[in-house]
């Protein structure tokens, strides 16, 4: 009977790229009703099913939000529900071979984990890396970063996703907050109030107004989640943390923009001939190939490759797979003669600029114990544990990150290319900013689902960070895709230049490590 409408008020002009439906830039009201409107929220919410924050999705980012809310005194009294379609475990037993899905955790995210109280558990089961080397396959340029040059002990750690998730869930459980875990619980319908918040009371007029003891009989302006088992949860804020294919985001009517990269990411756990504490990434013609150190001497392979190649790789046996990896990592650059130095190839191609680069390169190469000099990655022996698997790579960003009483976090808001391992770090950044916004709201007596607060304190800063990071990563990816010789040489030159200029090199590292707030 009652039509709930949601108004879109774009704060920063959102980029709309799909099929020219650029309505996100238009002001005005649109109807965003969930697929099943079974009536308005007229029933007084029963106290049992009434929550302050409902987090849909118990993955890494959803658990991070819950843990952060429980960690702060101001938000501890908020009643939080964490829902997931499948039961999630908060206890982690390390398997003999690390899991396939791993993430690179930057120091910025480590701070978030520390704040949430989950860092100790993660540190115990993860592998730190102190160096990172990025190089090209079409040219002989490279950049090598060292955490020590930034005064840090490590550039980050690599941890299995299940470890991160269980550590955060355990932290949420034992925090002082009122957090309830509900699984399995599937969300069937989502009902959000309109932007004004008072529209829900449009029809009440004086119905039981002044004398009513509670809000019974008049529609409430809260959000409602209808579960598959028939329960209806009312909450002040819905946090959608259910991944790139978020159903909550769909139900809210938010559209996404982005593109498929036409590639699949092949992941595998491998053993290497010698241990390393460096994260290696080589940009191949087909896509970047990363070799990341894991616990117990294992390493992880993430290879972005075309579907054809991905399929072939998945079929390979342990040794053949390793051979393919080694070939990809160790083949000499295609545009330079074997054994030729960087300086000679650059100077031959670009004359005076090249000689400048050559001299810089010589200076850099001669400094120190070769901290920025090129090193060969370790030899990969074979894959272990499970056979390699692949998943499609895409960029998918939501046009809006917030609606009245709804916030998207993690991949539900922005799914990015696994290049540079920034994906979950962006999600942890979301969790941190959202928890801080809720802290501030509680301090100022605001509604946790207040639209203005969500727009100003969560969406605006996150949009800036996410777009900047996405643009940078996408730019890097596209820059490395070009294989034509002159461009490749230029690229190699660029890499070399960056590598040789310490402050620039370290500046990039700082950005990648700390992320943006």
């Amino acid at each position: 009977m009652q039509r709930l409408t949601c108004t879109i008020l774009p704060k920063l002009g959102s980029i709309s790229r799909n099929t020219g439906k650029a309505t996100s830039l238009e002001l005005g009201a649109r109807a965003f009703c969930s697929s099943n409107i079974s009536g308005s929220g007229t029933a007084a919410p029963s106290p049992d099913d009434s929550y302050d924050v409902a987090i849909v999705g118990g993955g890494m980012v959803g658990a991070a939000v819950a843990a952060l809310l429980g960690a702060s005194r101001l938000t501890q009294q908020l009643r939080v529900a964490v829902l997931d379609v499948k039961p999630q475990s908060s206890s982690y037993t390390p398997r003999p071979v690390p899991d396939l899905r791993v993430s690179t955790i930057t120091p910025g995210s480590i701070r978030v984990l520390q704040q949430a109280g989950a860092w100790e558990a993660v540190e115990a089961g993860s592998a730190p890396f102190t160096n990172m080397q990025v190089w090209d396959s079409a040219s002989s340029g490279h950049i090598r970063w060292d955490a020590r040059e930034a005064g840090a002990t490590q550039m980050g750690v690599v941890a299995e996703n299940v470890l991160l998730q269980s550590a955060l869930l355990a932290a949420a459980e034992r925090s002082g907050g009122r957090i309830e875990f509900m699984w399995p619980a599937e969300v069937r319908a989502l009902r959000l109030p309109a932007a004004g918040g008072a529209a829900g009371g449009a029809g009440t007029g004086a119905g039981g107004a002044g004398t009513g003891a509670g809000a019974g009989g008049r529609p409430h302006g809260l959000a409602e989640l209808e579960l598959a088992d028939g329960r209806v949860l009312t909450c002040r804020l819905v946090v959608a943390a259910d991944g790139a294919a978020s159903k909550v985001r769909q139900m809210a009517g938010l559209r996404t923009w982005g593109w498929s990269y036409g590639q699949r990411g092949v992941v595998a756990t491998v053993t290497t001939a010698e241990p390393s504490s460096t994260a290696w990434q080589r940009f191949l013609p087909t896509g970047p190939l990363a070799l990341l150190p894991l616990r117990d001497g294992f390493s992880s392979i993430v290879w972005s490759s075309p579907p054809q190649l991905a399929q072939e790789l998945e079929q390979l046996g342990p040794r053949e797979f390793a051979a393919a990896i080694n070939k990809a990592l160790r083949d000499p650059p295609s545009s330079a003669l074997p054994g030729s130095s960087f300086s000679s190839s650059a100077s031959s191609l670009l004359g005076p600029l090249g000689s400048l680069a050559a001299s810089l390169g010589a200076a850099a190469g001669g400094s120190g114990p070769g901290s920025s000099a090129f090193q060969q990655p370790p030899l990969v022996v074979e894959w272990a544990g499970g056979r390699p698997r692949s998943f499609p790579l895409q960029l998918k960003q939501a046009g809006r990150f917030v609606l009245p009483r709804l916030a998207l976090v993690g991949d539900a808001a922005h799914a990015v290319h696994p290049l540079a391992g920034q994906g979950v770090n962006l999600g942890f950044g979301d969790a941190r900013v959202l928890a801080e916004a809720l802290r501030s709201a509680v301090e100022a007596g605001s509604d946790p689902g207040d639209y203005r607060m969500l727009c100003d304190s969560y969406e605006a800063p996150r949009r800036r960070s996410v777009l900047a990071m996405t643009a940078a990563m996408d730019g890097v990816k596209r820059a490395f895709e070009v294989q034509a010789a002159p461009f490749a040489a230029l690229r190699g030159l660029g890499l070399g230049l960056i590598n040789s200029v310490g402050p620039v090199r370290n500046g990039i590292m700082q950005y990648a490590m700390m992320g943006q707030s």
Partner: protein
Amino acid sequence: MSGHRLGLGLLAASWQKASAPSSLQRATAIALPAELASCPSASASSSTRCYSNAAKLPDTSSSQPTDSFVSPSTASTTSSHVSASCGHGCTHSTLTRAHVLPSPLSTNSSHHQRHTNPRLHLIRTTSTSATPSSSSSSPATARGASVDPREAAKFAALAASWWCTTEGPFAPLHALNPARVKYVRQSLAAAMGLDVGAPEPLAGLRLLDVGCGGGILSEALARLGAEVHGIDVTRENVEAARLHAGTDPRVFSRVRYDVISAEDLAASGTAMYDAVIASEVLEHVSKPHQLMPVLASLVAEGGALLVSTINRTPAAWAVAVAGAEYVARVVPPGTHKWSKFITPEEMAIMADSCGLQMWHAAGMAPLGPHMSWTLTNDLSINYIATLLRRRSEPEMGAEQEEGAGAGVGVAGMEVQEREQEGGQQQQEAQVEVGEQLGETREEEKQHQGQEKRQS
């Protein structure tokens, strides 16, 4: 844009008196039922007010509303059938006056003229109300036979307008709210020894929000745990506030709103609150020094009076009047009158005359365009102050505020009490102003004595 500073006095609109009642009012006024027509209170010069909470009514003939902010129009709840005695021996159910104020969105700033037709004085609210149309356009679903759907729709539209936090005429108030709530939280916690870091530090306190408007401040205070009583003289505002409060059960259980003036509430003699908050009210009242004692009388022993208003400085004129009303046009021209702004010194003097002392003060300013406000040290435009009952010896540290701001030097002054015979003329008062809250900066402890002669 700096124009955003202004708008807070949007609350102002609720105090603005319209010109003659609109034709709509006269047209929809209905004949009185016999019982009302015979009520001796139905006289041209009296202002009858009946309350839903059946408080004792003041003697209407003597309690002419001051030209402060009282509008002669009050009304009780819409469908409540509580009958109240109007003090004249007759019983009315819900009543209102014919000249209910127009919606706060009106741009008229001239003074309201009392509707003098006695027959149109008392009209049942429950049937039709003489209210001017506002922005309502959608018919609402009415509940109950006694509710006018147009009324309900109007209130719903007004509530939606009040609570549109991102755009619209009340958005600046929403931007301001976090700053003033944080100030209230910290100040009351310091004054009453509460735990400022607790999620609901104001639990157990009874607060009065004078000029509550749509309930923006009241709801926030309710979420901090307090029991809030919001009063406003404009019925539409109170209805809008009630509507919105009903959308959140937890808030609804902690707030109640009434259409009543502060004078009437104080006159009832039964109202005492742990803290009285008059936010963005004083600068719209023509005789704030008469309102202040009324507010002070509503404060219980050990309680506090918190007032937020705009300073009378060149900067305030530039930002809140010129900038907001003419450049950015976020509020209608005429909403604020620079001559009615109140400096912190004047506030301290007024406070002193009712036995209060200014304890803390802080400025409020937006961090940037479209951003929420924050507390600052600069009192030169918007500021909020805490007034406590003056003790025999000032215990508060004598600290000077920093941040002079544009031409306002609120230096530390001493309080000296003088007799108040003959009104407030010839009174020398010096106010000791403490440090401001919200910014943790080290402040120099300079003590300057200044004497000010109150004009």
